[in-house]
């Protein structure tokens, strides 16, 4: 996982890359991505007609591809992209290609130091993890997930073929869950959002047993109750207990292992999330129509908004922050039930300082990007900015942004907020 203690926390600003330097012979440069520590900036560049290269801190390397898409950095700072050569697709990790080529690749996922990706080979579907492809591929696969061990993967897979418009065949249940390529023997009408337990030994997901009956299945075993609808399940950390929002009589509640824990009084309830110690269960909920808020252990914050997204917990799981959209298309950040002053045109996902006293995020207003810490602007404004990061002692904040052609990283004092 990400260890920030060895990042450069010396105060001050450093220009890492001037993109003007890598524009030579380049037809265009795509969006810059930066590593979590801010030391590396990379972008896919079109270097010639139908030729693409990857520019990392100004260095193009030798590799060129017919296409390169979906770049991203892992938490450890590896640059991953999907590239195609001779009509085959490859995973590129720090310019190294995984050995096998595929018909198509998509949905890069990073977790626990590993990289996983969805694959299509000869119109058969599955996954490839850290360079290894499933032995079994399927007629279709989606809803991919990657476990915290960086090795385990799962997906919803179609285990029986279906002809055109065979509605009754479909309703008989032709989908299942494949964990590391092996399918459960149980079949369902639909399968959504599989998720791993922390030890990656169990998988839970939403299943639709008939057109009308939804429930949760854990390792193939369904809960003993069906619901009118359910949303994504979560494992309680350190246990095999599964919690999920369930809809009963038009209202949402939270069930654990098939027993209702939170009474069904919510107009909406989704994105459940446990604190790491399993003590607090958080979710985004609505107390009434058009009234969204954050819910902690079945208690809502006192403020509501038309829209709430991006629920993020503090490291101890006692506090939370979420993005709220107010009427008039203005955004703000709500931290522990109170909204930051000021309206923004966009707020990006927040981060907590390790001690939980500070929250930082990128905010945009009139095309200018600022880092906000506890609601106040921190440092200069940029043409584009990246998610900030707090130092392990919570005293400093790493600010990353682009002004003109210059990408810089700055370490600023975060104690004054």
């Amino acid at each position, binding site marked *: 996982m990400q260890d920030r203690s060895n990042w450069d926390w010396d105060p001050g600003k450093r220009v890492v890359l001037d993109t003007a330097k890598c524009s030579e012979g380049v037809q265009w440069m795509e969006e810059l991505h930066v590593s979590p520590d801010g030391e590396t900036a990379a972008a896919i560049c079109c270097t010639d007609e139908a030729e693409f290269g990857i520019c990392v801190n100004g260095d193009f390397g030798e590799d060129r591809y017919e296409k390169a898409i979906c770049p991203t950095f892992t938490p450890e700072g590896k640059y991953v992209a999907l590239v195609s050569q001779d009509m085959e697709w490859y995973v590129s990790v720090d310019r190294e290609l995984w050995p096998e080529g595929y018909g198509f690749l998509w949905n890069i996922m990073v977790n626990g130091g590993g990289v996983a990706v969805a694959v299509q080979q000869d119109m058969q579907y599955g996954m490839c993890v850290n360079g290894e492809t499933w032995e079994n591929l399927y007629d279709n696969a989606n809803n991919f997930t990657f476990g915290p061990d960086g090795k385990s993967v799962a997906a919803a897979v179609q285990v029986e073929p279906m002809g055109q418009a065979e509605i009754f065949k479909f309703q008989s249940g032709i989908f299942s869950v494949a964990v590391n390529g092996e399918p459960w023997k149980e079949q369902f009408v639909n399968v959504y959002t599989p998720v791993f337990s922390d030890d990656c030994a169990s998988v839970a997901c939403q299943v639709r047993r008939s057109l009308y009956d939804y429930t949760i299945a854990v390792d193939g075993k369904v809960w003993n109750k069906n619901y009118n609808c359910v949303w994504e399940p979560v494992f309680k950390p350190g246990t095999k207990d599964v919690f999920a929002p369930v809809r009963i009589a*038009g209202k949402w509640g939270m069930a654990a292992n098939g027993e209702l824990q939170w009474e069904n009084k919510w*107009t909406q309830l989704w994105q459940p999330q446990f604190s790491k110690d399993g003590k607090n269960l958080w979710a985004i909920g609505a107390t*009434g*129509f*058009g009234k969204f808020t954050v819910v902690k252990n079945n208690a809502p914050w006192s403020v509501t908004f038309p829209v709430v997204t991006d629920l993020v917990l503090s490291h101890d799981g006692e506090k939370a922050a979420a993005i709220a959209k107010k009427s008039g298309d203005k955004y703000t950040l709500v931290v522990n039930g109170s909204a930051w002053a000021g309206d923004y045109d966009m707020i990006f996902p927040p981060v907590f300082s390790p001690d939980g006293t500070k929250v930082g995020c990128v905010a945009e207003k009139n095309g200018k990007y600022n880092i906000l810490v506890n609601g106040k602007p921190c440092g200069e404004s940029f043409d584009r900015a990246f998610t900030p990061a707090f130092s392990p002692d919570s005293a400093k904040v790493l600010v990353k942004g682009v002004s003109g052609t210059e990408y810089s990283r700055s370490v600023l004092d975060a104690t004054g907020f």
Partner: protein
Amino acid sequence: MHDIYNFVVGPLAWFGWGVFILGAIYKLVYAYNKFITKDATSAHYMSWKFGLRSIGAWLIPFFTTGWKNNPLVTAVTFVFHICLILVPIFLSAHAILWQQFFGIEFFWTLPDNVADIMTLLVIAACVFFAVRRLAYPRVKFITEAKDWWVLLLVVSPFITGYLAYHQIFNYQFMIVLHVITGLAWLALIPFSRLSHMLFALFTRAYIGSEFGGVRKVKDW
């Protein structure tokens, strides 16, 4: 006969009014509760502005698409409803009853000959509706037995009232019959098609709010 008259204008009248008022309240409260619980995703959009705008538009004869495309029905329905509401309230014979039972004193009542004509208009309108139901396929197709009962119910106090006023047949008998049909008229408003009287404003206001607020077009 006199005893019967006393009974119908006494206990039965109170009963009739009671059913009408309590029934109307019950219906409205029931519908309101269902609306805000089961139809919360609709109730949210209720708007005074667009609701009243819609009601206003539909109160003007020949203004809306529906009225324009059905001119004859429009004319008849406006006359029918206006007479239907004004006559029972402002009839001089009734004014005495208002005074007697509710202590309400009117400054003005309909001149009897006008009321008489209005009564005939209501009866004529009902005949028109009946003919329409029989002769016009689009209405015939959707007519249920209920619709005939309602029409009969609506017209009967007007017929009996008219006959009583003109002392045709036995007055005593007619007036008793009149009161009975009149009370049935009232009492059944909440429990028949006539409940459109209670709901019309709300259904209009609701659809007006949806069209004005969400769909941003006129609902007429």
